[in-house]
């Protein structure tokens, strides 16, 4: 016998192990050592969350009550997996192409990015999953109870509610820790997947061990078990053909439509080919999980005392035969099945709730709408965390209120029937272009309504949520509306009755309404993209050009993706178009890709709504519509090739145009340069000449002489500085500069720069925002030159920042062997058209007198940075003038020497 406190200790140790495994997997994934984390085996094991505590404990109870019928729950998924080529492969392909975040997102995206559908599906999933989560909590509580009830020694038995509360709390912490690390749902939750894979192994091993012990330890081998099966009451189990087929169908539908299964199967899938392995490995897993269910049930019925709960035979059989350790293993198996289901389920539901309910609500409520800048990312992450906790709280409340119902299996099947309402809209969406949003919305609502009315509400028992009178006579005495005998068909099994009516009416309404209604353009395009997911053609585009400012888009994306990631994405997109800097052309292609990227974080509907705020009135062009309407895709394909070529040409032309513009600007600048330089040289020269003429007057008083000589001296210094600068620039431009490489602390350099710049406009009070801790990093470079760049940037900010309370934010970080320093002030920034000119010689945006320099500063900075192996760029969309300096941690020549 296992004392209760040892049970608790083992359980805690197991939980710690899960934390360590999840943490280690996250670490390895961060270091890029996670190839095996993405193997087909891990993928298959993660699918095993299909087998919850309901399977682990409930299947045996189910077999004891209804014989072989339990097996239908696993045959359905086996059929779906065997047909992976037809449905699953397409789902996964669509999921990756459209960056789908959840099943609600899939439906909403297919039907014209409609958020209404997202909300309906989310509602169905939450309502159906809550009792299922309660069921998991109940199973853990019951199994703890089995150990506690028979052990008077050890710690006092906590009351059952407390166990469930502890489990729910622990699970929400684990899920929040590892499930909300990143926003993009398409990025894999490595820690969670790894922990789930481990739990999958534990539950399989545990159930097999108990099965082997029962067959060869208690019974006398397979022959004996067969005799016992035939002699037991199970031998006369009532096989109802309709129920057999209906349950197989519902289980198959649930595999496709359960939010948690969709999460591991489609959202977390990293490679389509893993499906090929899972197509046989997952049925194998299911087969092994159910292999010993019947023997355990039969032996349990035969040897356990009358009235023992068959749902707990997996635990009580080993305990009754003095196998404490085996029972402990079985307990861990059951614990694993319950926890892994709850973790994934709450992540999937939280993603749906935050993307389809919280974020759209918040965006519509806040002032300024989508365009207002703000930290959407923080909001979404926070709402996801809160949702996880709320969903677990909901499950716990349900468990608490229902007080734990008798048979585990009933709740599971009700939940399956609920989510299978999504199936018609889902399959119709990926195979039938004619399916429309109205059809899907009506079908889903009808199916959900009937399911609620005929199965979910009656499941609380007579006088639960529906009064006994309604159950027996129908609402207001209308006989053909009796919840469990709709349309006067009596005597059907309640589950079958509900599944039959809800799914058939759901499908009929969905198809009928789709035939009668007309889809809007976005729906038709999404329909085409979904149904023809395997075409090479990228498909028609949803956006035509509509005067969107790339800078506005960048500002918005930074709020969602985070500054670094958004800048990286924009930079890569600009490079793809053959442009430098952070602002790509807002081509339809680019906007489409940006929308997909955002959809991975906040869901399709929200991403679409946000983008359409900027690209108003430019959503779909007539051309795009023609493409949708046309069935002759072959012709289109040819034109796509032509289009690709002309796009290429257009890109080259754009690059040429830009180069040409720059040349023109430069030639204008050359002229200004000459007049500038003569002007710059002339002004001091004129005053030198004038004052030296005065000095020639011998009668000048000494004091005046002194003063004029000083003026002359100052003017010559100014001249020298100008000439120095020019010389410096020409040396730098010709790459003939001699660098003196030294090591320094970046923090010290920045300190010096701030110090040195403080005599520029010293009368202004200036606030510096710096993260001193992050600044401490070594940099090996020509530190004097780097300091020169820093001083220039800081004094520029002091000079030109026109805010009432000027602030300068200096951000430093290290990324990929490069140091990045951002200087961001809070002024009005630099207008778009001037951004590419500021690094040119004599480029001054304000008038000369105020600037007080020759306009060579930034040109010198750029040349210095190029000489140091780095660069300096203007960073748009930061709410002020922002410059990014980046340079290698150590000089490249040194790096390559080390490598060799």
């Amino acid at each position, binding site marked *: 016998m296992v004392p209760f406190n040892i049970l608790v200790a083992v359980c805690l140790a197991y939980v710690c192990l899960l934390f360590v495994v999840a943490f280690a997997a996250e670490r390895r994934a961060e270091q890029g050592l996670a190839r095996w984390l993405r193997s087909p085996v891990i993928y298959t094991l993660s699918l095993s969350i299909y087998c919850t505590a309901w399977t682990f404990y409930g299947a045996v109870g189910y077999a004891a009550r209804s014989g072989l019928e339990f097996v239908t729950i696993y045959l359905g998924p086996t059929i779906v997996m065997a047909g992976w080529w037809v449905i699953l492969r397409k789902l996964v392909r669509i999921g990756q192409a459209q960056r789908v975040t959840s099943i609600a997102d899939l439906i909403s995206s297919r039907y014209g990015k409609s958020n209404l559908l997202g909300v309906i599906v989310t509602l169905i999933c939450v309502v159906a999953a809550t009792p299922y989560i309660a069921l998991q909590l109940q199973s853990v509580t019951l199994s703890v109870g089995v150990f506690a009830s028979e052990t008077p020694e050890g710690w006092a038995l906590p009351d059952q509610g407390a166990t469930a509360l502890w489990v729910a709390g622990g699970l929400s912490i684990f899920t929040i820790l590892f499930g909300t690390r990143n926003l993009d749902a398409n990025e894999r939750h490595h820690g969670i997947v790894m922990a789930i894979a481990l739990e999958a192994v534990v539950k399989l091993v545990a159930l097999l061990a108990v099965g082997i012990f029962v067959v060869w330890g208690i019974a006398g081998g397979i022959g004996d078990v067969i005799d016992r099966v035939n002699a037991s009451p199970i031998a006369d189990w009532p096989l109802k053909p309709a129920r057999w087929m209906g349950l197989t169908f519902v289980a198959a539908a649930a595999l496709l439509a359960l939010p948690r299964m969709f999460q591991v199967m489609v959202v977390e899938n990293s490679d389509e080919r893993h499906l090929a392995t899972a197509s046989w490995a997952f049925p194998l897993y299911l087969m092994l999980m159910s292999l010993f269910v019947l023997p355990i049930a039969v032996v349990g019925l035969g040897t356990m005392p009358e009235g023992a709960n068959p749902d707990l035979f997996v635990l009580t059989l080993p305990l009754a035969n003095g196998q404490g350790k085996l029972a402990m293993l079985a307990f861990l198996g059951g614990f694993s099945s319950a926890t892994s289901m709850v973790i994934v389920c709450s992540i999937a539901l939280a993603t749906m709730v935050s993307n389809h309910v919280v974020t759209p609500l918040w965006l519509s409520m806040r002032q300024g709408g989508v365009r207002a800048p703000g930290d959407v990312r923080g909001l979404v992450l926070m709402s996801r965390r809160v949702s996880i906790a709320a969903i677990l709280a909901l499950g716990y409340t349900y468990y608490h209120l229902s007080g734990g119902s008798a048979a585990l299996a009933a709740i599971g099947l009700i939940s399956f029937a609920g989510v299978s309402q999504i199936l018609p809209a889902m399959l119709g969406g990926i195979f039938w272009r004619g399916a429309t949003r109205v059809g899907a919305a009506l079908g889903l609502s009808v199916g959900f309504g009937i399911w609620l009315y005929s199965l979910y509400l009656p499941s609380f028992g007579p006088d639960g949520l529906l009064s006994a009178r309604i159950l027996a006579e129908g609402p207001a005495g209308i006989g053909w509306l009796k919840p469990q005998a709709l349309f006067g068909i009596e005597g059907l099994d309640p589950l079958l009755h509900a599944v039959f009516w809800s799914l058939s009416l759901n499908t009929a309404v969905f198809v009928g309404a789709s035939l009668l209604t007309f889809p809007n353009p976005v729906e038709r395009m999404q329909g085409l993209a979904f149904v023809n997911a*395997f075409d090479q053609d990228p498909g028609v585009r949803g956006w035509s050009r509509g005067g969107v400012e790339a800078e506005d888009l960048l500002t918005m994306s930074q709020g969602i993706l985070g500054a670094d990631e958004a800048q990286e994405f924009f930079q890569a997109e600009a490079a793809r178009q053959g442009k430098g800097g952070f602002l790509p052309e807002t081509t339809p292609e680019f906007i489409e890709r940006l929308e997909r990227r955002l959809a991975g974080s906040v869901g399709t509907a929200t991403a679409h709504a946000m983008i359409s705020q900027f690209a108003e009135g430019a959503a779909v062009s007539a051309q795009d519509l023609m493409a949708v309407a046309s069935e002759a895709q072959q012709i289109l394909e040819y034109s796509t090739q032509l289009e690709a070529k002309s796009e290429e040409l257009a890109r080259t032309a754009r690059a040429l145009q830009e180069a040409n513009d720059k040349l023109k600007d430069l030639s204008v600048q050359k002229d200004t340069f000459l007049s500038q330089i003569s002007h710059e040289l002339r002004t001091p020269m004129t005053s030198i000449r004038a004052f030296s003429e005065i000095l020639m007057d011998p009668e000048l008083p000494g004091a005046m002489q002194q003063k004029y000589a000083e003026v002359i001296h100052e003017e010559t210094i100014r001249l020298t500085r100008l000439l120095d600068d020019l010389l410096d620039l020409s040396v730098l431009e010709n790459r003939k500069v001699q660098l003196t490489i030294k090591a320094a602390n970046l923090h010290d350099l920045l300190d010096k720069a701030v110090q040195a710049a403080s005599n520029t406009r010293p009368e202004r009070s200036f606030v510096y925002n710096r993260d001193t801790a992050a600044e401490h990093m070594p940099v090996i470079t020509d530190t004097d030159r780097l300091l020169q760049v820093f001083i220039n940037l800081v004094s520029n900010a002091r000079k030109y920042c026109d805010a009432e309370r000027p602030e300068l934010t200096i951000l430093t970080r290290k990324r990929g062997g490069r140091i990045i320093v951002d200087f961001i002030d809070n002024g009005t920034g630099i207008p778009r058209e001037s951004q590419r000119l500021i690094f040119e010689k004599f480029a001054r945006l304000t008038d000369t007198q105020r600037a007080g320099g020759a306009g060579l500063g930034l040109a010198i900075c750029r040349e210095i940075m190029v000489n140091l192996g780095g660069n300096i760029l203007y960073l748009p969309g930061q709410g002020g003038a922002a410059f990014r300096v980046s340079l290698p941690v150590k000089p490249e020549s040194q790096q390559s020497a080390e490598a060799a």
Partner: protein
Amino acid sequence: MPASKPPKFLARNSYRRRRMIDAARVLPLVASFLFFIPVLWRPSETPEPDTARGWIYIFAAWVVLIVAALVLSRLLERAGRGADEVADDAEGAP
């Protein structure tokens, strides 16, 4: 050394691959057929209890299906590597 005969079919690989895909499409139907056979049983009415036989049948069918899926997925993968997306255009259309 005898000269090798010219192949009877062109694009043998992509033909093979297409038939493999057909097989992959048929497999769920085979699975349904195997798993719906128990619908014909009447375990409570048979004079001799035969539930154990039913149990053995289901698991045997299961194993057959798993092996078939395993073989098919291997073949598909190999054919896919050989014929490189040839069939994709053919089966992308609904």
